[in-house]
């Protein structure tokens, strides 16, 4: 007996009416019929009726009736393919891997009150030239401070947290007083500023200068400045001013009653009254000491003189006073007239670019501009960084403009207690990292400016300024055009 039925087949929104179906024939025949109509391969077809699927081996007990409606599922599309590259998930990564992915600088493990050292190392790492030469330094097998520091920098590049054991040992050997132990056998907290000074001093001998014959060491070349000091006797007009030169590795910002800003703290040091044995008067006389900078290093260190020795309590007490510091620092007022003349041309260029930009911004008001966040990035692409040093003196600053690179803060009431943390600038604008020993976390500009003191929060102790790099448009004529 033959059953030839007319059925309907629904496929998506299409309905095919009056398809002939013979239940004596193999179901594949029916599927082939559907294939001709829809173009869906029989093996990709799912044909169903009244809550049951049509199997390839027979009609089974499907309640096929005349006029029944089949539903067919299936696509002629390509099947979903697995992507070749597996997606890596944040949750699967170790902390170190995550840090590299996120471009976070590596942290340093605290080995027991060694945050002062960790913070110093993190800050010094912000001098790229220093870091580069240290990383590239061939190990000499010795266990000196420079070697171990270079070792630490190298392992920090992998992004994982480093326990600076060797460095600590080397530091203790080089500066025995840092190895001082507390009453219960642990290491004592030390003054980070001292550690900074000592490290820089030790590196002076370990690293040679680059492309320069003026300086003996890399540290001097990039971080050392020269001060021109004039001593003028105020009590005698005849005595000629005594001019001398002093080299410095950092500027000190003294905090007095009126000091509210780093600039004023630094300026207070320019003119000082000292008493000195006058050769012409043959007695102690009051001299005016004028110290002006004659060479600006590329990386300028500013130390806040926050600690003073309280004799009664025999501690280095801290001045908690709020002293603001700028993210952009202009050293113009601290320079000698000679240097001012030298840096003038570069400063003019800075101004020119700045003016250009403001004008562009003014003119560009009507233009549809990309959103604020994207703009600086795009502008940067068309710019070319200019050298920041005088051509005849690599490692100097040729404009007097600086940008803050790193802040070393202290939290606590005396230098030998509390906690030191380094805050370093990231690559992208407005990104800073807080390097609290092994924990590195991102922070913003605003939080950096909050480190100015005035409370029990972290207070800036050492600042490291780097040169502000002049960026000149590559094709100045075309740039404004392209925006239209």
């Amino acid at each position: 007996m033959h059953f030839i039925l007319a059925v309907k087949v629904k496929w998506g929104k299409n309905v095919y009416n009056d398809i002939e179906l013979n239940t004596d024939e193999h179901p594949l025949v029916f599927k082939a019929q559907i294939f001709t109509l829809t173009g869906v391969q029989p093996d990709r077809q799912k044909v169903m009726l009244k809550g049951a699927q049509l199997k390839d081996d027979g009609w089974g007990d499907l309640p096929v009736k005349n006029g029944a409606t089949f539903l067919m599922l299936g696509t002629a599309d390509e099947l979903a393919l697995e992507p070749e590259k597996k997606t890596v998930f944040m949750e699967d990564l170790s902390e170190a891997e995550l840090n590299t992915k996120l471009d976070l600088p590596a942290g340093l493990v605290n080995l027991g009150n060694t945050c002062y050292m960790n913070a110093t190392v993190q800050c010094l790492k912000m001098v790229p030239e220093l870091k580069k030469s240290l990383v590239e330094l061939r190990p000499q097998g010795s266990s000196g401070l420079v070697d171990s520091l270079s070792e630490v920098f190298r392992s920090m590049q992998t992004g994982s947290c480093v326990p600076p054991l060797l460095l600590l040992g080397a530091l203790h050997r080089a500066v025995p007083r840092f190895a001082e132990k507390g009453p219960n056998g642990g290491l004592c907290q030390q003054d980070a500023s001292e550690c900074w000074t000592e490290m820089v001093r030790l590196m002076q001998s370990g690293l040679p200068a680059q492309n320069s014959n003026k300086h003996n060491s890399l540290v001097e070349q990039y971080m050392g400045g020269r001060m021109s000091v004039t001593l003028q006797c105020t009590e005698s007009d005849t005595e000629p001013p005594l001019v001398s030169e002093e080299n410095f590795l950092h500027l000190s910002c003294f905090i007095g009653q009126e000091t509210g800003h780093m600039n004023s703290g630094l300026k207070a040091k320019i003119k000082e009254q000292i008493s000195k044995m006058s050769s012409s008067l043959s007695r102690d006389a009051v001299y005016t000491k004028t110290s002006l900078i004659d060479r600006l290093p590329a990386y300028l260190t500013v130390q806040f003189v926050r600690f003073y020795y309280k004799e009664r309590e025999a501690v280095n007490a801290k001045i908690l006073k709020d002293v603001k510091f700028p993210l952009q620092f202009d050293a113009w007022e601290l320079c000698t007239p000679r240097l001012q003349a030298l840096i003038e041309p570069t400063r003019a260029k800075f101004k020119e670019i700045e003016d250009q930009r403001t004008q562009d911004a003014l003119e560009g008001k009507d233009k549809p501009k990309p959103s604020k966040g994207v703009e600086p990035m795009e502008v940067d692409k068309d710019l070319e960084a200019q050298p920041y040093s005088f051509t005849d003196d690599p490692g100097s600053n040729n404009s007097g403009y600086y940008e803050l690179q790193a802040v070393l803060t202290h939290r606590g009431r005396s230098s030998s207690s509390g906690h030191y943390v380094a805050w370093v600038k990231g690559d992208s604008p407005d990104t800073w990292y807080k390097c609290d020993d092994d924990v590195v976390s991102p922070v913003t500009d605003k939080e950096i400016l909050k480190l100015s003191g005035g409370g029990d929060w972290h207070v800036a102790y050492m600042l490291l300024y780097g040169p502000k790099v002049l960026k000149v448009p590559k094709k100045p004529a075309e740039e404004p055009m392209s925006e239209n």
Partner: protein
Amino acid sequence: MAALESLRTLIRASTTSMTSVPKPLKFLRPHFDTLKEVFEKIQDPQTKQFCADVISVLAMTMSETRECLKYRLLGSEDQIGEWGHEYVRHLSGEIAADWADSDDQAHERLLVLVRQIIPYNMAHNAEADACDLLMEIEHLDILEQFVDEGAYHRVCLYLTSCVPYVPDPENTILLETSLKLNMKFNQLPQAMLLAMQLNDMEKIRNIFIQCTDPSMQKQLSYMLGRQQICLEIDDSEVKDSEELVEIMSNNHLNHHFLNLARELDIMEPKVPEDVYKSHLENVRATFGGGQVDSARQNLAASFVNGFVNAGFGQDKLLMDGGTKWLYKNKEHGMMSATASLGLLLLWDIDGGLTPIDKYLYSAEDYIKSGALLACGMVNCGVRSECDPALALLSDYVMHTSNVMRLGSILGLGLAYAGSNRSQVLKVLTPVLSDPKANMEVIGVTGLACGMIAVGSTNSTVTNAIMQTLMEHSEADLKETFARFLPLGLGLCYLGRQEQADVLIESLGVISEPFRSMAVTMVEVCAYAGTGNVLKVQKLLHICSEHYETPEKEEKKHDRKGKDDKKDDKKDDKEEKEKDLTARQAIAVIGIALISMGEDIGAEMAYRTFGHLLRYCEPVIRRAVPLALGLISVSNPKLNILDTLSKFSHDSDAEVAHNAIFAMGMVGAGTNNARLAAMLRQLAQYHAKDPNNLFMVRIAQGLAHLGKGTLTLSPYHSGHQLMSPVAVAGLMATLVSFLDVKAIILGKSHYLLYTLVAAMSPRMLVTLSEDFQPLPVPVRVGMAVDVVGQAGKPKTITGFQTHTTPVLLAHGERAELATEEFIPLSPIMEGFVVLRKNPEYEA
């Protein structure tokens, strides 16, 4: 005699129009006792009756006892209304009081009086009083005789609004009376609503078959479709049955929803970022973002994408990007990501299954499982005669891979939720007794069975689940997924009130720690939405039990006794304490579930929750945000949002998770700007906590559910009807949030898709009699409570005029702004068929 007559006339003349106690009575007061004495002495029966009348009226002001009634019965049986309104009211009160402590004979006498009072009340705009009296004496059946065309509407309104305040079984009687009245005046839509409220299939069927008007049939079909009831009818009973069945199975839903979307110009798909609006968050640009994919955040994005574009059939993540996005998820995440396709293609049986089909060929079990779940979701609330969901999914129910089983089982549960189809249950029940299935599969099966048989008291399901509960050891039942088995039981008896007692009785065989939890679960489900105060009190009792206090007492006792004994007992106590907490959590949700039906109960529950949050155990605190969410689903009330917002910062992580999710639930599908701002702020606050951030994202997705066109509220048709399927979906989600760490934040986040069962468009679509969308102007405004108000009060306030289709927010009501058409349904919600007004003149 003559004196009495004149007294009577005097009193009557001064009382007819007054409701206060009239002057003449004041002067008679000192003579009350004398009058009574006189009455005793009078011999002439007629005079005696007159005298009784006068005393009866006087007693209204004088007597503390029921003398008014007593003398009324002794008096002449003439027009009761002649003594004025106040008298009738007073008499009614005394009858009600007397009824309780008198016998049948007295009842007969009282009934005679009642039969006089009722028509008087009906004729004088005091329908509410009439109803009250009849409710007190439990004789609502009399009502039907006295209600006329003008009054029945107000009577019915009053009766139905009384339902939440009277105890079981009186509430059912009220509904039935109201139903009868509506039938008497041939108000089929209202009658249908009441029948659905009663959940009485027989009555629904009768009403439907009784209807002969084809347009009205369509209207009734739409109403049934909204409640997801699909009658099996054929042409012998009703003409054009095929067409009507199609309406009841909601096949048109997708089409009309998309129509609405086009009308509102919101077809453009949204990406999760459109909802997060993280550029408004005050954080620096995503830090190192784009380089690493966070599996959890991608999972959240999958959910959000699904929720936001639900039902629109297009998005930018899955359908455009192809499979790339799926592989940006991990393991179970892939399952949920694939399953979100089901959300996108919601209700689109014809076109929706094809795009999902290709994922069934994937090599990855998780993707296949997700695709199965998606197939189920597409069919949720929509029925097709081909039953594609059953055909596709049933093969995988007994699959070797547990992952595949989960997808197919939950898919079936969602696709056939509320259908009570034995064919589907036959496929699912064997899983419950399958030794190879793990507890997760069994739990989800129990849930799926419960959802399919929701409110049906289907014994196949309850027996199968009971069997499973008995077969498993105590240790098995301690697993977190075991909690879905009693939920399955409870859902079977959803809204069935005392019918569940038998089941509760039989739960006694299970060993203790689990028993009390199961009993509470079934009980709260049985009374869901009834507003039953007694049950709420009982639940509060459960919550208020502190388990530390008895322990301390125990210690004091034991100090006198032996030390080892003390240790034993202490362990016992601790054990008990831990286990009973599960019960308390259920009880908290139960309070919300029972009282969510009406506003006063919900308000009281809100205040109770405040106390619970402050003084109770952690487990209760964790459940309270969920309960808060449940009493105000898709209705972002400020006070609730504020409370939740407070607890979204809680130090207990689980309280915070639940509070954040509850915020999403409260604002689900509303696009509420205030909530969106709160959630953005939370996203900032929890930026470093991936779990909480995940919750915030989910909540953000929910708040923009279907771009603000969908609602999760289980109540519809003027807040009168509770959709059991929607409640099942909400309960399934909430119960899984009771162990948020292990279930939602663990690997079983796919349970979030149970919310699909509760999703429905909050729209009003007007149709012409031949099925075509008919744009007409309507006024949409806040609904006004008109219960018990005389005359024809305005039903909406602060309205705006729109053209259909329109969206209706919570508590809003619509009315036609044109005389040109007459709506066939009194409730302007969902689909309303319009008929041309024959008397309309342009």
